[in-house]
């Protein structure tokens, strides 16, 4: 009996909890990609760097708050700084839309031209981040580190294995859940959300029925900026902030979006969790002895991108539309 419990705890500790919080981060990222894809109709290569940009400003505000002595009790100060980070990122992204993307939208350029433009935006955003905060690692998590400490759990349960639950992991799951519920409520119930879905389904029909396209685009960018900043900050709190890592997140994020069916928000969430869980599961496989040092690594950590890639390849070969038949945005 205790063996099974120990195994369960081990599983929770090394796979389920980290994968759930990583999955939530990927899901938020993939939602941003999928919204841009569904409504603006192009693959946004600048998304990873937008995440880095938003996180950077959140870090700046965190430092500002810390220096004047504002803190958030046992929660990280970054949560207080988050709205300001989102605000700045929204303004930045809207500015980019204004000076870059709007032109191609008006010309009705091919999606791939918009994607190339997003490469330009990626370069610019990347240089902004490099200018302002540099390329080094930044840790900005403060407050209580653990909700549940391994030792405390061992003493309480009497089991051999300890269970730890980091505050950042709990926070990620909670905040992501709230954000996703809010987003779905917005898309399903509000006038603007319905307009966005209509625009995504059929642009011409939506225009005929009097939907203001510029407004739809504006709201989409604000939502994208909010999701990107949220994903970036939660990832940064959980691990650390390093601009290049954020660029590399592009691959698992796109894999998640394509797996779920690109343009489909539900799919993006499911895809995010599938990618995260497969990465963690393939990282470890449990042999018959349930010791942590007996955890055999199926793939070394360096090859975690290979997991996203294999999933991607499998989807492309077997079901190119993704799990939830993508292309259009459905609530």
């Amino acid at each position: 009996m205790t063996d099974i419990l120990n195994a369960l705890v081990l599983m929770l500790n090394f796979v389920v909890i980290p994968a759930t919080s990583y999955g939530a981060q990927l899901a938020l990222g993939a939602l941003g990609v999928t919204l841009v894809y569904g409504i603006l109709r192009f693959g946004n290569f600048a998304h990873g760097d937008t995440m880095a940009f938003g996180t950077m400003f959140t870090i700046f505000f965190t430092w500002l708050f810390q220096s004047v002595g504002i803190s958030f009790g046992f929660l990280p100060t970054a949560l207080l700084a988050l709205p300001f980070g989102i605000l700045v990122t929204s303004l930045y992204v809207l500015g980019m839309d204004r000076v870059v993307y709007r032109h191609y939208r008006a010309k009705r350029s091919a999606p791939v031209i918009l994607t190339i433009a997003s490469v330009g935006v990626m370069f610019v955003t990347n240089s902004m981040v490099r200018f302002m905060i540099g390329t080094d690692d930044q840790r900005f998590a403060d407050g209580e580190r653990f909700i549940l400490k391994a030792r405390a759990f061992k003493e309480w349960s009497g089991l051999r294995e300890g269970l730890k639950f980091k505050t950042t992991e709990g926070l990620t799951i909670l905040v992501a859940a709230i954000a996703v519920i809010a987003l779905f409520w917005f898309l399903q119930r509000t006038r603007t959300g319905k307009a966005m879905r209509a625009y995504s389904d059929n642009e011409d029909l939506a225009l005929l029925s009097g939907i203001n396209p510029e407004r739809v685009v504006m709201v989409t960018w604000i939502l994208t900026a909010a999701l990107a900043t949220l994903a970036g900050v939660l990832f940064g709190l959980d691990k650390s902030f390093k601009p290049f890592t954020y660029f590399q997140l592009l691959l698992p994020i796109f894999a998640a979006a394509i797996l779920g069916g690109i343009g489909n928000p539900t799919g993006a969430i499911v895809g995010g969790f599938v990618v995260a869980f497969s990465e963690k599961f393939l990282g470890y496989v449990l042999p018959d002895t349930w010791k942590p040092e007996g955890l055999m690594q199926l793939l070394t950590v360096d090859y975690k991108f290979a997991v996203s890639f294999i999933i991607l390849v499998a989807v492309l070969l077997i079901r190119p539309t993704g799990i939830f038949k993508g292309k259009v945005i459905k609530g």
Partner: protein
Amino acid sequence: MRPIILFFLMGLALLAVGFAQSWAVMLVILNLCLISAVMSVGLNMQWGYAGLFNAGVMAFTAIGGIVAVLISEAPVPAGWAAGGLPILFSGFLVAAFIGAIYALRRFVSKGWIKNWGTVGLVVLAYFVIRPFFDGGVTSVEAINAASAGHLGGLGLNILVGWFVAAFVAAGVGWVIGRIALGLRADYLAIATLGIAEIVVAVSKNEEWLTRGVKNISGLKRAPVPRETNLQQAEWFQNFVSNFTGLTPADEAFKQTVIEWSSVFVKLCFTALFATVLAIVLFLAIRALNSPWGRMMRAIRDNEEAASAMGKNVVMRHREVFILGAAIMGVAGAMLTTLDGQFTPTSYQPLRFTFLIWVMVIVGGSGNNLGAVLGGFLIWFVWIEAEVAAQWFSTGIEGSLSGVLDVFIVNIGSFEIQVKDFTVWLKNATPHFRYLLMGLVLLLVLRFSPKGLIPEASAARTR
């Protein structure tokens, strides 16, 4: 006319560097300009001829580099003795399983047996091969990790490596093409982005193959001589003394020989790279103007119409993707040859993938001369932007130093001093070129989408 003027201006810019900085610097830039031009001709085939978005140029250049190393480096006998056999055997097993999967997919018609059988074979292969492979790798990497610790290569001339690089890169291109072509354009972009990350991860981690982050250096680079050998050679010393009038007895002679040998070696590389570029360019232009090239452009401009005319769009895309990949592979092998070493950590997507994109877009998508010009111009700007930024920031620093400690701004309890600003400026200077590249790409795409040397035939309707 326009290309001639633009290339003439480019030449002037390079000459200006020669006079203002030094001829050695100019030749370093020129050699990398030539390599960049080959890369951008390769990408231009994929994007300019066929409209394919390849976000993994880095994959093919890195493969080219690895292949050049594996062909040219001398074999490490200790490594082979320690674990060569198990690694060879696992390579054989990989081939056997691929054969089995191929046979399964070829001869079994039931869909679900096909798919699940494939999955089963892949998993089985993993568990069968892993013990042999791991054992071999561990023993290879264990021997004298500081100098050996890998298998080494075949010890052939590195020029052979350039050819093999083309074929290996083409092979990887074929696999990617099989998977992602014929689906939506974004899928190809993501698949190539993924393969690029994986190739670089492999080169960083598989020490038995590439020594990973320990790098492989001191590659042979026949037919180009080494500087040190050249300095000893009698004919070269005579050559220098004939030209300069110095004799070996003179004080300045030794220094002059060293300088001249460096320039001479760089000129050899220039000649070699220029030959490759000329051949690739000739073939690329011929291909574009052939019936095949016309068909490619027809497909690019209107896929449905071309398809209705009976053209096999997916097959043509696959062809052009493979050709472009092969050219990128050659360029990658050339780069490794020039560097004399293979450094996995230097492979960054912004530098090796997206910079090449800027070259093609700026030069003129669909025009080979444009791609060459873009390669030259953008590499030149990429290098010189840093010099310019350095110069600029030193200037600001100098003019600010007088007021340095006087000016203090208070925000909350933040103190921002001018001194901090100059420190910041110094750190920020190397990042300036990323901003510049982004702006160049966005401006060209917006105001001159056809690039500096537009495509010759009818205007594109994108």
